[in-house]
Structures are given as structure tokens and as C-alpha cells.
């Protein structure tokens, strides 16, 4: 299939908690395990990416079972919120996921914008206390974009690849492996495509040094 045509599409790096009406084109990198919600729906957390970075998206039921790694998908009218400290994309009412191609899209796996962020975890708790729909009461259903509060996708499992050794540091680490910023490899050796050992220094994720006052994702402040 051909690569998607370029238009003024939103990039993953611009997604913030509470973002709505998101139209994003991304490529699917990994599909997580299926989990079942209390009301019998299936949810999968998928890692998707575009040239600006990667993010988790939660997909319900049949669509989730159809998505394959390598699929190029156009999300329309999606939204984003925090689920257990991780920024996550969702398809809302009136939204859609459409496969428009496969394989032929460049992406950057880093930064992973869905990395667990302790500040965001506490931010989520603050929102609960403020009287908006309680996270636990909404435990069974996908988040509604009107309330802005996340609901657990089933048993509350974190996106499985948050701790993936390939690309993401364990939570709390401050540096990402710099797959995207290697530049000219200087020690070329025949191989099966493993990246050169000389990884350049990565921009620090700066997670632990910013205090939140307005509910904005602190990582955004640095970029």
C-alpha cells in the first residue's frame, strides 16, 4: 500500500492530556495483550508512532483485534488523557481508526510520550478529588472525552511495553536510548541490523524536576 499523503496533520509530540479532536496518522509498532473490561469489552493497548515520537493508544473490541504491527492508521476525532500516569490516545464517539496503508512510513520510537510519569499520576488523582467523575466508578468503560478522566481499561494493566527493554528505559530513568539521533554510524560492520553501539547522548526526559501547577504535561514545557 502507498504511504499516506501529507497534509496538515497533528503530530504525536503535540498531544497533551485533555487534547480533543485529534487527527493523527501513525504506524503501529506493537500490539499489547488483550484485557477484558468488567462489562465484557476487550481492550488492547498498542504502541504507535509517527516521525515525532511514540504513544500508547487503547483500542476496543473488534478494531483492536484487526490492527496489526506495520499498519498505517489514520485516527480521526481522537482524544488523549492520562491513564495511570501514562498519556494515552483514544478514539472517542464520532471518532474512527482507518487503515490507510502498511509498512511505508518512517517513525521515531523515541520519545515515548506514554512513558509513566509520576507527576501525571498525582495529577490524575487531583482531578478525581475535584469532583469530576470518579475514576473508580467509571471503572468499566472507556474514557469519555467530556469528563476528561481516564477509566481503567479492564484490570488496570499498564501498557505492556512501558517497560520494554528494547527502547524504553525503566520508569524513572532520565535518558532514552537515542535510536533516532545516531547520525552517521562510524563503525560499520556487517550484521543483522542491530544499531551501532555508539549511541549519542539523548535529550533528558526531565521528568523529575518540574512541578505541576496548571495540569499541563511537564514534559511539554521543555520542548
Amino acid at each position: 500500500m502507498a504511504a499516506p499523503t501529507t497534509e496538515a496533520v497533528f503530530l504525536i509530540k503535540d498531544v497533551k492530556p485533555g487534547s480533543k479532536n485529534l487527527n493523527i496518522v501513525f504506524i503501529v509498532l506493537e500490539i499489547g495483550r488483550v484485557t477484558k473490561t468488567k462489562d465484557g469489552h476487550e481492550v488492547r493497548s498498542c504502541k504507535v508512532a509517527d516521525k515525532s515520537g511514540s504513544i500508547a493508544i487503547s483500542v476496543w473490541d473488534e478494531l483492536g483485534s484487526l490492527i496489526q504491527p506495520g499498519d498505517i492508521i489514520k485516527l480521526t476525532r481522537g482524544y488523549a488523557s492520562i491513564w495511570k500516569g501514562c498519556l494515552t490516545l483514544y478514539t472517542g464517539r464520532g471518532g474512527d481508526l482507518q487503515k490507510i496503508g502498511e509498512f511505508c512510513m518512517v517513525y521515531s520510537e523515541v520519545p515515548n510520550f506514554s512513558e509513566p510519569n509520576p507527576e501525571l499520576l498525582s495529577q490524575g488523582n487531583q482531578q478525581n478529588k475535584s469532583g469530576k467523575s470518579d475514576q473508580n466508578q467509571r471503572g468499566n468503560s472507556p474514557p469519555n472525552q467530556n469528563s476528561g478522566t481516564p477509566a481503567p481499561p479492564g484490570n488496570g494493566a499498564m501498557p505492556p511495553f512501558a517497560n520494554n527493554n528494547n527502547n524504553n528505559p525503566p520508569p524513572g530513568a532520565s535518558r532514552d536510548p537515542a535510536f533516532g539521533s545516531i547520525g552517521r554510524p562510524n563503525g560499520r560492520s556487517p550484521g543483522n541490523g542491530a544499531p551501532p553501539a555508539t549511541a549519542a547522548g539523548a535529550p533528558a526526559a526531565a521528568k523529575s524536576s518540574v512541578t505541576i501547577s496548571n495540569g499541563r504535561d511537564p514534559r511539554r514545557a521543555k520542548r
Partner: protein
Amino acid sequence: MEPAPAKAKPQGRLLVSTQLDAKDELEERLERCVGIVQSLTNGLSEREANDALTANVCKGQQQHEEVCLGLFTLVLTEPTQAQRCYRDLTLVNRDGMNGILVKINQILMEKFLKLQDAPRTQLVWLVRELVKSSMMGTDGVVMTLLKQIAGGDISSKNLWLAESVLDILLDQKEWVLKSGMLIAMSVYTYLRLIVDHGAPNLLTLRQKEVDFCISMLREKFMDCLIIGRDLVRLLQNVARIPEMELVWKDLLHNPQVLSPQFTGVLQLLTARTSRKFLACRLTPDMETKLLFMTSRVRFGQQKRYQDWFQRQYLSTAESQSLRCDLIRYICGVVHPSNEVLSSDILPRWAIIGWLLTTSARCPAYLSSACGGRSV
């Protein structure tokens, strides 16, 4: 609160699609043309319908195209009406079927993998009909059809395609003999496919393929020579088959038997093989993905693409023979510009390294990547 209700998307008649797939523009266009044809002919007798269609195509190029594409699509999607629709198509067509041939090429190059079973069968049927009526440009379509036969693939769909196209070539031999390029391409294709068809249940098919290749080699050797030195490689890989062994004997010791103008194997070895042949053994999808890797993917970022490609095309024991074709393609067809070569785009040696080292599970095939493998 419920998850967003799934938008019910009607399944098209041409392509396989799921709830996830975006609507296909080509399919939509073709189905619109069907609608036009049906609105023109609804409730009319055959004669009246034909008159209505003829009147419509005379109105202009657009109407001509719409009616022809509509009838063409009906041939693909309505097997019971195919004969009649094809006859109508030949009656109203005014451009020597050129528009239809272009559309067939497009479907073959872009949508073949996604065709539903009935349209795929009908498409091959239609190509056969076009060959029978000797439309100009049909040899090109047959060559594109040959390209859809995947190497290293013994699934029933692929075997069916290999046999169906072979049947066209056998059935329409007179027509085939008129096109030197088609002779060369089909010999190149089937000499290669013979290697995949060694299993006991495939020997009948293989014999058919051998018989076809032998007849081309012995009757039209100078056309087979168009292939160039890779013909030697192909013949080497099938040399243990008795009929092929006889060809080898003549090739080496009695070249004039094959053709008065053939001076010997050296003549063949000094003839370069065009990239066209190396490329014809990759399906369009394989080519698209490999070309993407060699032109857009940065060195260090290739792992996932490799995994996806491997999962799709290199995951069975039989598929290992495809590695040779892929490596040959990378070496002989992919020629990056200086700009790409001096960038950090995935270099060709890295792709070849991947193809070689991941075949370590099948050492027999590794040697065929470096040389020949006798069947």
C-alpha cells in the same frame, strides 16, 4: 458509557476489507461505474440494453470510460453474467481495450493481494479472453500477471495462479510465440518456479512447467537468449531434471541443435541480464517494501521493518528460496543515488546481511543464495 459504536462499512464486491480498512478509492470508482451501467440497462431486453450502452458511450470519452469500466467490473464481480458483459464490452469498446488493460494493470500492481476470490478468478479468466482476441498490449498484462506469482510460496492461491497463467500460455501458444519478451519472461518465471515445486504433490504441476520451458527453449531459443547470463543460472538450478539435463548436454556440446545462430554457452554468459528479469520475480508489494527500506529507513531503525517483512514473506521453510531473489534484486536493481549513498539511509549491505544471517536456520538455502542449487 459505551465505546464508540463501530461504523458499519458495507463490504465492497471487489476487495477484501474489514471494519478497519479505509474505503478503497479504486473500488468505489469501479462500483460507481457499475451503478451507471445498471441504471442504463435496468429492465431492458438484451438488445435494448446494448443499444442504450452504445448510445451512451458515443456521448463522450467519460461516458465511454464509465460504461467500459462498469462492464469490466461486472465481469469481475458477477461470474454468471461475465460472458454476456464481456461480449457487451467488446461491442461498445472504442479504444482497443486500452483503458481496460490499464485498469487491469493497476489492479494487478496495487490490489492483487486484496482481491476477493471470485474477482481474482474472473480477472484471470478475462485476461485469457483478451489474449484470445489478440488485443494489443495483452502480452504486457500477462507479464504483469506472471509477476504476481510469488517465489517461495506454495499456498493454494499462489499455486492456482501459477497453474492458471501457465494454462493460458499453453492454450494460446501461437499467440505467445509472437512476443519474444513474453517468451523470455515466462521462461525466466517458470524455470524459477520449478525449483519451488519439488514436493511430491506438486510434481504434476512441475512437469507441466518443465514441458513448457523445454518447448520454448527448443523452439525459440534465441528469444530465451534475451534473458542473458541468468538463463545459465536458472538452468543450473533445474539441471537434474532429465529433460533439462538433455538441454544442458546440447547447450554445452551441441549448441547448433538449439539454434543455428547459437554459438555456445559463452555467448550466453557474456550477455548481460536486464534488471527487468531480476525485478519480475518480486511481487509489487515485496518491491514496494524493499525499496522503502533502501530509500527511507535510516540505518539503525530497520529492525521492525525487517521483522514485518520476514513475518509476511520469509516465515516458512519453502519461502527461503525467495531470499536469493531478494538479494539479487538488492544487488542488481536497487541503485541508490549518490545522495542516498552518502546519507545514513540503510545501506544495501545491511539488508543483504539481514537476509543472509536470518536464513541461518536453513543452511541449504544459504548456499543457493551464494551460488546455484540443483533440484
